[in-house]
């Protein structure tokens, strides 16, 4: 995903010299191609995320489209007040990019897990949250957020995420992508849990259950229309996210259902418990522990259906 992002950004920057890329001294083997091609629009701020966000705001207020780049929770939490008071308060054209959303840096430990970021960023006014489902969506998302004035949070996986879309689907911020049609229930995923959602749909199909799969690449503004349709047209909604259950995609979908006064037949939220694990491991291992595998999600769904 990070490769898809940087390639897309370089292509965009060729035509728009207002695009800047700032890094907090991270992005080895990723940011170099941008730095090489656009040295006047690249800046390694150093290990100083608060300053990075303030500088990004100052640049944006001087007419630039500024991407800040870091990993996991670093570009969000260390500089959260700068995001709130500088970027959002001024509706500055700053795009915050994190690589390693969720538990992509699994064995690095909890310090490197971005599992509360969606909840925190959802609360920020003016902020748009985009978590593309695969490298194809990542390219489209990068283009879309350049075209949209104002703050944005782009949550990416790391590397090696499977390509789900065989062709490039129509992509618009705030519009869910229907990956598969079905009426028995709707699987809504965000970020690279899209592949897990598709696998769940395959396993459910083997049980004779037809699942709709929606890629909720935009967590804010959430696609309320697609959510309402899912509630009305299918037998239930299951949200799947590599994020703790407080305040993420599941919460955003629940907000829509509550505000629409809709009764959904069944509602499941799959995510990470709001607790800390005492052991570490790979992203796959941690997903297994959290019950975020296609098999485990399918088992629970079939049981309760």
């Amino acid at each position, binding site marked *: 995903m990070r490769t898809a992002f940087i390639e897309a950004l370089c292509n965009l920057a060729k035509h728009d010299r207002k695009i800047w890329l700032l890094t907090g001294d991270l992005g080895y083997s990723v940011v170099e191609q941008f730095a090489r091609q656009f040295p*006047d*629009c690249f*800046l390694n*701020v*150093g290990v*100083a995320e*608060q*300053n990075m*966000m*303030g*500088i*990004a*705001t*100052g*640049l*944006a*207020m*001087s*007419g*630039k489209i500024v991407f800040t780049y870091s990993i996991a929770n670093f570009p969000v939490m260390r500089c959260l*007040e*700068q995001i709130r*008071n*500088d970027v959002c*308060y*001024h509706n500055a054209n700053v795009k915050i990019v994190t690589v390693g959303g969720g538990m992509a840096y699994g064995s690095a430990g909890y310090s490197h897990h971005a599992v509360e970021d969606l909840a925190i960023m959802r609360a920020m006014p003016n902020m748009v949250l985009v978590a593309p489902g695969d490298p194809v969506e990542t390219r489209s998302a990068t283009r879309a957020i350049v075209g949209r004035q104002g703050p944005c949070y782009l949550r990416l996986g790391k590397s090696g995420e499977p390509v789900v879309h065989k062709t490039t689907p129509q992509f618009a911020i705030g519009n869910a992508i229907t990956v598969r049609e079905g009426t028995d229930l709707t699987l809504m995923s965000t970020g690279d849990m899209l592949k897990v959602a598709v696998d769940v749909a395959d396993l459910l199909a083997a049980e004779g259950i037809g699942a709709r799969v929606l890629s909720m690449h935009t967590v804010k503004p959430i696609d309320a229309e697609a959510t309402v349709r899912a509630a009305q047209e299918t037998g239930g909604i299951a949200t799947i996210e590599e994020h703790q259950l407080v305040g993420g995609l599941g919460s955003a979908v629940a907000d829509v259902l509550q505000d629409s006064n809709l009764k959904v037949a069944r509602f499941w939220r799959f995510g990470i418990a709001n607790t800390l694990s005492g052991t570490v491991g790979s992203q796959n291992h941690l997903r297994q522990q959290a019950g975020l595998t296609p098999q485990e999600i399918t088992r629970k769904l079939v049981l309760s259906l």
Partner: protein
Amino acid sequence: MIAGKKQAQIRQMGEEVNQNKPSIHDLARAIRAHSLRMVHLAKASHIGTCLSMADVLAVLYGRVLRVDSTQPCWPQRDRFILSKGHGAAAMYATLAERGFFPLEWLKTYCQDGSKLAGHIVHHAVPGIEVSTGSLGHGLPIASGMALAGKRDGSGYRVFVMVSDGELDEGSNWEAILFAPHHQLDNLTAIVDYNKIQSLGGVKEVLDLEPLAEKWKAFGWAVREVNGHEVKEIEDALMCVPYEVGKPSAIIAHTIKGKGVSFMENQLAWHYKSPNGEELKKALEELEADR
């Protein structure tokens, strides 16, 4: 580097903008008087800080900044960021005195439905570049603006005022490290060094000394001035940058509550609002200083 011709053009435009030169003493006195009336009406805090920075603001807006109240967003304008956003009353008073918006607005300071919050806001307030309030935000943003100016070859300059207590915030030191590395000599930081912070003297709470040496060690060209001596302030501000390739820092030694005898050097006036009698007495003191 900006072409000499372009720089001369900008200078000329700036001089035209600054043709209407008020008496700095009168402007500073007006800023103080407005600030006193505003915090009295609003029963608001922070009069001490407004009084300590009034002279520097008067010099900036009366002599130094190339800004135009009829075109607050003129692209080539100098940028001023008040990072110590709690000095809002003095900032609004300065802008109103310089014609950015009507003096009438000042009465609405902190009132219900007002545009003028107790920490400066840019929304719908002409002349305010950046909203601040939480400390440690202005210098990084100013650095970003200065960097954009450098890379774009624009001739505008960026000035930022920070408080002494504010320098406890680590984010400032990230920016203080950053600006010299990128040779931002179009950036000037002014420290309103009134020696009193929120809960006590700077020396007692978290000593900043040796302050000038710290800025120098980080790569800034530094001058120290008496922040109430107009000539000294003007001399220091008019000749930035002091060294090509280095950002400039001006440490303005000031007195919290300056100009009102019973407020000077008193921590309490970080919080207290003058009652009717205190306001009358304060205004009389300012008037006597004419």
